[in-house]
């Protein structure tokens, strides 16, 4: 027979301890905010004011038009105008510029004559993420320049061709895609870092032995410990969502109640998993490390948050099916950005519930309050 008094007593104790534990409080509240700021402001996949060098060997009004189109877009800033090819190597080596535009002599002449005109774009590929975007923008600018050229009387075929020298990587997303993903990551942090400590800590400090001698049921211990972290997790979800929408203008087109319910399910599963790890590891150090590898890192790297799954190698793609956060990301992005509901998210919703059940099952079955 489970006793509500005992269960709530465990929760109350956890809350009192949490309030006095600075480290946990920082992890629970400060870290999510920090991540939000980091991902919202500082780390942006969007690229602006890319330093660019230009070697214009044509020096015609047409070539100048093309060159000016770059800063005009807002994405690029011409910082160097070079005279000789040798200087290009130097600039790229030093990372003084990320893009070098080389316009060959005869550019304007080719355009006017209806022949394909060439533009060479050299991109610093050492930062593949930025390189991809830079290339994408470059292509875009060149494309619209071509269209203009056609409209203004050149031939039908795209008159300007941009040749790239950096291999294609994957497309990274802007903050609209990040904030919904952040919700999942933050929940994994709560689970990984906080709950993985809670049971192991009692073993290490010797309080579990004393607790074990009382009539408290192990399910009461697990659920009692779960409740405060559940509350913290939901608060974090709320804060991140609200700040994301209000401060970062992330759209919210779906149903808040649905988000809350599915978040609750996901969070409970994650917490259950964290406690399972804590019960198995019995040492705080070991528990944190296992939790990092088993829950946090997969959520961060393999859920589609940082890197698009479609572009991953097949093996990793297969592994992502085992990462719960992957499905949760579909939910959050769906609700935030696409405004979809249960009909579309039915599968993910069921999987969240399955995750909840699995997490709780593992935690309550594996945890034993007796020694050994």
């Amino acid at each position, binding site marked *: 027979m489970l006793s509500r008094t005992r269960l709530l*007593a465990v929760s*109350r104790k956890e809350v009192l301890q949490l309030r006095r534990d600075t480290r946990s409080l920082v992890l629970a509240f400060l870290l999510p905010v920090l991540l939000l700021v980091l991902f919202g402001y500082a780390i942006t996949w969007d690229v602006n004011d890319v330093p660019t060098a230009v070697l214009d060997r044509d020096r015609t009004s047409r070539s100048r038009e093309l060159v000016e189109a770059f800063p005009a877009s807002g994405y690029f800033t011409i910082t160097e105008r070079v005279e000789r090819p040798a200087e290009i190597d130097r600039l790229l080596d030093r990372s003084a510029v990320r893009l070098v535009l080389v316009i060959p002599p005869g550019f304007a002449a080719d355009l006017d004559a209806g022949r394909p005109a060439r533009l060479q774009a050299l991109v610093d590929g050492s930062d593949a993420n930025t390189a991809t975007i830079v290339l994408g923008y470059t292509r875009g600018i060149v494309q619209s320049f071509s269209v203009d050229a056609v409209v203004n009387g050149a031939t039908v075929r795209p008159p300007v061709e941009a040749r790239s020298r950096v291999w294609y990587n994957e497309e990274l997303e802007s903050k609209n895609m990040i904030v919904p993903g952040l919700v999942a990551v933050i929940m994994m942090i709560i689970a990984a870092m906080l709950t993985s400590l809670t049971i192991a800590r009692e073993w290490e400090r*010797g309080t579990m032995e*004393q607790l074990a*001698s009382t*009539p408290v049921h192990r399910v009461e211990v697990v659920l009692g410990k779960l409740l405060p972290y559940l509350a913290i997790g939901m608060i974090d979800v709320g804060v991140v969502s609200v700040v994301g929408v209000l401060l970062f203008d992330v759209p919210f087109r779906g149903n808040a109640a649905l988000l809350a319910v599915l978040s609750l399910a996901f969070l409970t599963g994650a917490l259950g998993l964290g406690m399972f790890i804590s019960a198995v590891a019995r040492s705080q150090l070991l528990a944190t490390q296992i939790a990092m590898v088993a829950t946090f890192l997969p959520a961060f790297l393999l859920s589609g948050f940082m890197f698009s799954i479609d572009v991953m190698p097949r093996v990793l793609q297969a592994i992502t099916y085992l990462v719960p956060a992957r499905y949760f990301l579909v939910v959050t992005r769906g609700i935030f950005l696409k405004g979809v509901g249960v009909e579309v998210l039915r599968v993910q919703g069921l999987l969240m519930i399955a995750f909840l059940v699995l997490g709780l099952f593992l935690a309550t079955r594996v945890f034993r309050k*007796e*020694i*050994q």
Partner: protein
Amino acid sequence: MTQHAVRVEGLTRRFGASVAVDGIAFTVAPGELFGLVGPDGAGKTTTLRMLAGVLRPSEGDAVLEGVSVAREPERVKHSIAYMSQRFGLYADLTVLENLSFYADLYEVPRDERPGRLERLFRFSNLAPFRDRLAGQLSGGMKQKLGLSCALIHQPRILLLDEPTLGVDPISRRDLWLIVHEMVAEGVTVVVSTSYLDEAERFDRVAFLHEGRIVALDTPAALRGAAGGVIFAVAAADLRGARDRLRRIAEVRRATVFGDRLHVVAGSADDGDRIARALTDEGMDGVEVRRIEPTLEDVFIDHVTAKAG
């Protein structure tokens, strides 16, 4: 015949290849103060942990207030209280918060709490520290808090694992006053200790050695059964005297006991022989007096006999 409060039968616990507790058996009557004495590693903690349902027996059983620990460990816990050797309360909770937590765990009725708390505070002098974090209490106070948390639900059986270890003599006296008060109220207490002077006050004592009980009786009977006659010997050079006496045929054992030697000999007449042996060596301050054996003498007797 009154029902035993505690009945232990063939209780065994193995850890891998080693046997920590090897088929021990004993009974404790209701309201008895029963002591487990033995060196570290003898099996005292393991035994108490099994009785408390914190560790499962490998074999055998213990029945507390009629409930079997092997079959129904959780049912046992409602009527017992256990105090682990290591401080088992929450250092980051206050005295009052710890007490309330344990009151909740045992579902002590709310209206009874103020009265019980008041009584426990009176015993333990913890009232001025009710809002202090348990981790900031001194060793003696921590133990008193542990005992208070154990007593909040008025258990019928108390299991205490070396409650006075490392505690200063004054706090030790306070703790024992509380325990004796409980015994007077009919609580059964099973306690382990390495302080043999405390064992003198138990109703019955079991000596544990390497997982087995080597002696079990009242302190008086144990003392009475001690072999030989004991003399308390004083000398200016105690250790020198000890070494000298160990070479005399009549002396079975000579051990330092504080500022005296306890010398075990065959008969009361040996006292003169002992005194002479020392004065002949020119030793000063020699005094020889026959005494009653203490439990520590008996303990040493048993253990050295075991060691062969």
